[in-house]
Structures are given as structure tokens and as C-alpha cells.
């Protein structure tokens, strides 16, 4: 097992190199000049040239790439074009915020989504099933942006006015207390919850039809144990895969939630940086997101072995 994990880490290296290559070249294909972004739209062409030289953008691209890789290997992610502050510092401040939000919303999604899926599967084709799946459909199709704003309006304006309070039940935006987590977590979880519920339902339906489930029931195993110990455990593999993928996606993809709730995460940092053509910041952020994705994938693969002892890595 240890050997397998080590090998996976070694394999991650070319993935990271490939990602750095892709992001480096693709942002340079996008028209637009960071030198103008930094020098200001009023700048003279001479100043723009000077800034370009300072940023090293006057060098041929392969040389720029080599310089970039060299710096990365020394752990230097460069300096943001927009703020003039080190890229590493900005990411160090924002990454934990994103990780927290992603973690709590996936946890929340799993705690609600998986039981709903199980319930749906065990009561397949009843009204409970229909209701659960309508709920899931809503979750998948509701725009996060809209849901976020509705939550804010509800908890900050509507509910307090019903209750006759003159202050919000939950703080509308920002960070700082556990209350700040509630709305962004719900908004970000809605989609994942729905997908997990549908995934669990499908996977459980398949498992519940297996022979060993019939055997377990025939032996007189209590129904709860049949469903959760025998059924769910075997149905978990695809669900874990989906949760892993969602974790990776949310690392960089929580932009909308972060924007609505003024949550200073890494997704917003990335999108803002693209607008400014802040090359070092884009490169740094994408790299960090890639590392996150790779790590989660390795973790998911390792989990498979724990979930299903038949899976062995050599």
C-alpha cells in the first residue's frame, strides 16, 4: 500500500508539470496585456514597455517558461501584478477559507444527501422516493447565485421582520464566526447534496437487488443492518468517487458562492486575476488547485481499499 501511494505521488509530478505548462501557455494565448493592467490605462507606451521588461514579458515565451519553472522549483511563486504582493502570501490567506467552506459544505451535503438517497432507494417508486427526487432535481437545477441571494434576503431581512427583530438572524456576508458559515455552506452544498442523493439512490438500487442482500434478509438480518452495513457499504464506491471529484471542483469552482457571500476564497482570487491578466497569480492559483485535485484523487483511491477489502493495490 505504502509503495502504491508513493508511486501515485511520483506520478503526480508529470501531472503538475503538464498543468503548469497548459496554464502558462493558455493565459498567454488570451489577448490582453498585463503591462497595461499594471501601468494603468493612461500610461504612455514607453512606460508600458518598461513595465513589460520589468515583468520579463519582453523575453521569448520558452525562456519565460523556463524562468517560471526555475522559480517554482525554488518555491518562489512570484509577485502579483495587480497588488504587488507575493503570490504565496495571497494564496496562503485564501486557501484555508476555501478549504473550510468546501469541507463543511461537502460534509453537510453528505449528511443529508446520502440518507435521502438511501431512503429513496429503499422506498423506490413510492411518494417518498418521488419527493426526494424532486428535491434532488431542484438542488441540481437551482443556480447557486440565486439561492445565495435568496438565503441572504431571507435570513437578513424577511425572517427578522416576521419575528419583529431589528437585526439579521445570520450575518449576510463576510467571515469571522460560525454564523458566517451557515448560508454559504447551504448554498454551496445544494448542488452536491442533490448529486449525492441521486448517485446513492442509483447505486443502492443496484446493490439491493444483489444476491447477498437476499441471502442476508433470508438469514433474518435486521433490515437496518441489511441496508446500512451490507448495502450502503458496497454502494459507497461510486459515491466516494463523486464526492472526491466534487471536492476538487469546489476548490476552484466556488466562485459564485464566494462572490455572493463576500467570502475571500481562492476561486474569486482566480477569477479576479484573470480579469487583470495577473499571470503570476493565475499560475500560482491554478497550480494550487491542481495539487488539491491530485491529492484528493489519491485519497479517494486509497479509500477504495478501505471500503472494499477486495480492492488491493500492488
Amino acid at each position: 500500500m505504502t509503495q502504491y501511494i508513493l508511486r501515485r505521488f511520483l506520478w503526480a509530478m508529470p501531472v503538475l508539470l503538464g498543468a503548469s505548462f497548459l496554464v502558462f501557455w493558455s493565459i498567454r494565448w488570451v489577448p490582453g496585456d498585463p503591462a497595461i493592467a499594471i501601468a494603468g490605462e493612461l500610461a504612455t507606451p514607453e512606460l508600458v514597455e518598461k513595465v513589460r521588461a520589468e515583468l520579463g514579458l519582453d523575453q521569448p515565451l520558452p525562456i519565460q517558461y523556463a524562468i517560471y519553472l526555475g522559480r517554482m522549483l525554488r518555491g518562489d511563486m512570484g509577485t502579483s501584478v495587480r497588488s504587488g504582493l507575493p503570490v504565496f502570501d495571497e494564496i496562503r490567506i485564501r486557501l484555508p477559507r476555501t478549504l473550510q467552506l468546501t469541507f463543511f459544505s461537502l460534509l453537510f451535503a453528505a449528511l443529508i444527501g446520502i440518507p435521502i438517497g438511501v431512503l429513496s432507494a429503499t422506498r423506490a417508486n413510492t411518494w417518498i422516493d418521488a419527493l426526494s427526487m424532486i428535491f434532488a432535481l431542484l438542488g441540481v437545477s437551482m443556480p447557486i447565485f440565486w439561492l445565495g441571494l435568496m438565503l441572504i434576503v431571507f435570513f437578513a431581512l424577511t425572517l427578522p421582520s416576521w419575528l419583529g427583530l431589528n437585526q439579521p438572524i445570520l450575518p449576510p456576508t463576510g467571515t469571522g464566526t460560525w454564523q458566517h458559515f451557515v448560508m454559504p455552506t447551504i448554498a454551496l452544498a445544494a448542488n452536491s447534496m442533490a448529486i449525492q442523493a441521486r448517485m446513492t439512490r442509483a447505486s443502492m438500487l443496484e446493490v439491493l437487488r444483489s444476491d447477498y442482500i437476499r441471502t442476508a434478509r433470508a438469514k433474518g438480518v435486521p433490515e437496518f443492518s441489511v441496508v446500512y452495513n451490507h448495502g450502503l457499504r458496497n454502494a459507497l464506491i461510486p459515491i466516494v468517487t463523486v464526492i472526491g471529484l466534487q471536492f476538487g471542483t469546489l476548490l476552484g469552482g466556488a466562485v459564485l458562492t464566494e462572490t455572493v457571500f463576500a467570502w475571500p476564497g481562492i476561486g474569486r482570487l482566480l477569477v479576479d486575476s484573470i480579469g487583470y491578466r495577473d499571470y503570476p497569480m493565475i499560475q500560482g492559483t491554478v497550480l494550487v488547485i491542481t495539487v488539491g485535485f491530485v491529492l484528493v484523487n489519491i485519497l479517494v483511491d486509497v479509500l477504495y481499499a478501505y471500503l472494499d477489502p477486495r480492492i488491493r493495490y500492488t
Partner: protein
Amino acid sequence: MRTIRFWIVSLVLLGLALSACVAPMPAAEAPGAPAPAAGPKTLTIAAGTDIENMNVHRVTSSPSFSVLEHIYQTLFYMNPEGELEPLLAESLEPGEEEHTFILKLRQGVTFSDGTPFNAEAVKMNLEYVQNPDNGSAFAFLISRIQEIEVVDDYTVKLILDSDFAPLAAHLSHGALAMVAPSALEQGNDFLANNAIGTGPYMLERWDRAESVTLVRNPNYWGEPPAIDRLIFKVVQEDGARLVEVEAGTVDVAVRVPPAEAERIDANPNVDVITTPGLRTIYIFFNVTREPFDDVRVRQAINYAVDAEAIVNQLFKGAARVSDAPFAPPIFGYKPNPPYARDLEKARALLAEAGVPEGTSLVLYHPTGRYVQDALVADAVRAQLREVGLEVELRTLEWPQYVPFVRAPAGENQVQFAMLGWSTPTMDADYALYALFHSSEHPPGFNGAFYSNPEVDRLLDEARTTIDPDVRRELYAQAIDIIWEEAPWLFLYSEVQLTAIRTNVEGFIVHPNERLIATYADKK
């Protein structure tokens, strides 16, 4: 069972690890609790964007200056009425020698770290901005200053390459505010994260992408402000900002969308205030290209486009139809009768100029740079169709758009294009020279390639004339010619809508987009 236990344990561990790797949070206030009546007063402003960094000489955006101008002060202050007031300077008078100015400084001012503000500090700051290595985007404001001499502790002699009337107005720009020499000496990394100025507030903390908190400067030389603590909170999303101000979790919210202004204003606890802006939105014609080389075509388009309808429909009145090439708060403003919509006249002018029905034109416009820019371009397209002109719209992303419209003569592909111009110095020189003087053809900002020797002469003369009344007259003459020759399709100037809780008094929204809380109080 082993699996489930494993899951639970690993989830809890991961959760703990995540919580541990986060910086300690600021002391938690009850969510949205308004500041208590007694005790320290806090004013919270929901801004749309975070500040770039703390270096006032390097930042370029209004939100950054709004924060930093509470910490740093300029030599002169341009008040919202467009009048210059001395601030850290007492006066700026022409010197005895040619092209020199004598700057007298206010005495008894100290920086928040206790070091004195004096002539040496002024020299260090201006030289810092002029030094190209420091990358100050506003260095051009003082590019005419050739030498800065310290005469005595409170007198500075500025030697220019020619007389330059708007000098004091330029020195009122936030980018030329005075930073403590003790801070300048510590270099750009220090300046990006720290702020030591002479202003009424000091930096308490900056939580990047979240908020900047300022506290009252106990050693402030002027009247101490009533508000103890100022928080600039970053809330990008328009809807969320509005909810915050309605719920009372912030006291001020910037950039109210025009469509929401009426609803918010109806809330008894919130007022929406309207402030004229300094940015004028226009479409310039490339006057060196057919058909825009004919003044009749340019006038015809001005008659064909209904700027008033655009302002009323798209902006719900939250914009001002242009009656000059720049907005009223700016020195030198002189109104002209707007080109009211007259389709008959437009058609007649086009026919006279020999432009046939169905002529195709290409209009370039930015998307998302100015409020509703793409919608305005589309309205112009639709209105020009009514006089038989087929306009194709093309848009580029902003970083690409600027070099495109500023491409020099040989490479320039623009027929007509939309742009906005803001005049932060509130002086006509800034508003006209770069846009209409023939020396400013692209890569300058005279994208129209407009060239009129009389306008050049008037602008040159106004630039070097000290007497404000004479200057005003020179600008009025230049504006008349420009209005008549119509190198632009004159559209509108922006208006700022700001939501403020009714218990806040004395809060200033400056035409130059600065938010000023120094004179504010909370009931």
C-alpha cells in the same frame, strides 16, 4: 463497522486540521449588531472591491484612494464643489524666477508615527513618484516639475519646464499624498502593507479581500473626527451590498444599481444619494476616415442619437446628458445646447454629405468596463438604423480594447468607438488636452485624431495662464469649437448612487468617487 469508524475519525481530524490552519479570527461581534449608542462609534462602508495595496503612490483605483485618503493627505484638497483648498500646503504662488512656484507648508503637522511633516518630506514624496523605478501610474501629473528644492523647513521651490496653471489641482490628486519619510525609507514591500500618514485615521488592520479597518489618529493635527473606527468591507455582489445596508449591518453601500434605487430609497432607514460623477462616456469618430471626415456626418449622428432616451431608459435617470465634453463639477465647464434628437435634420445632413441609406459602419465598444456599456452601444446601433445607417457592433475585452483604440495612425482600425474619460483633478486641462489637442493623437488619447490649430492654441494658452477667469474664458472658446465640430458623439456623464443609513450624517460622496467619512457622525 471498521469503515464507518475510520470515516468518522478522519473527517474529524480533517476538520480540526482545517480549523487550525486558519489565522485567528477577529473578535466576533454579534451578527449585524449595530454599533451601540454609547462607547466607540464604528462606521462600516460596503465597498465593491478591495484595495490593491497600501502604497498610495502606486494604487490606481478609486476604492483604494477612498480608503487611503483617510490616512494620507495631499497638499491641496479639491472640494466636491470643484474649489481648491489648502490642506498640508498653505499656498502655491509663482516664484520670482521664470517657471518656478513657491510652495508654503502648514506648520505643526506630524505623521502618525510622530515624525514631522516638512519640506524634506514633500521633496522625498514627489521624487519618489517621479522615479520610474517606483512604477507610479500618476507620475505624469508632475512630469513638468524638473527640480524640487528645499528652501527652508516649510518652504519648497518647484522648478517647472514651463508655466503650468493646473499644478495645484494636480497636487490635490490622492496619488501625490504625503507619506512619512520614515516609511518611504523602508521600501516598497513595507509601503504595500503599512500606512503612515498625517490624516485623521490610521491603519488598524487589513484582512485582504475582506476588509480594511481604520482607527482615529490620536495625534491628528486637525479637528478630530466623530467616528472612532472606519471599516471598509469588500462586498462585490450588488444585491448583497443592498441587503447589508437595508439590514443595517453596514452604514453605507456604494454603487446602487439604477433599477434598485427607488426601492431602496423607499426604505425609511436608508437614503439613496445622487452625486454627479467626473466620468463622461462618449463615442469618438476617427475624423481622418470616411465618412467621419465630414463634419456634417458627425453632427448628423449627434442629432440621430437620443442621449436623453438612453439616460432615461437604461439608467432610469441616473446619468446626465452631456452638454459639454466633460461634467459640470470640473473647472472650466461651460454648457452648450445639447444635440436634441432631430431625425429630419440628421437625414438631411447625411444626404448633403453624400452618405447613402444603408451605409455600413463598425462601432467598437467595451463590455463591462462602464455601467451598461454594451447596452448603450446597442441603443446607439438601433437609433442610427432609423436614419439609414447599419451599425455593426464589435467588442473586445478591456485589456485588449485600450491598445486597440490607441493604435497609432498607420495601424489604427477604428471607425468610431466608445470610451469613458474621468477627470480626477477636476480641471479642464486634464479633461480636454489629452483628448482634443493635436499633439495627443494615438498612442495618446485623442483617438478621434482631431486636430484644430485654434483649439490647440486655446488649450496651450489656458495651460500656462494663471488667472482663473482668463482660463475659464479660453476653455469656453475651445469647448464651443469642439461642440460645433463634433469629433465625438456626445453621450452622458455618470452619476453615482450611494445608499446611506438615515442615522449617518455628514458623509461625503465626492464627485471623484472618493468616500469621505472624516466629517461624518452617527446618531
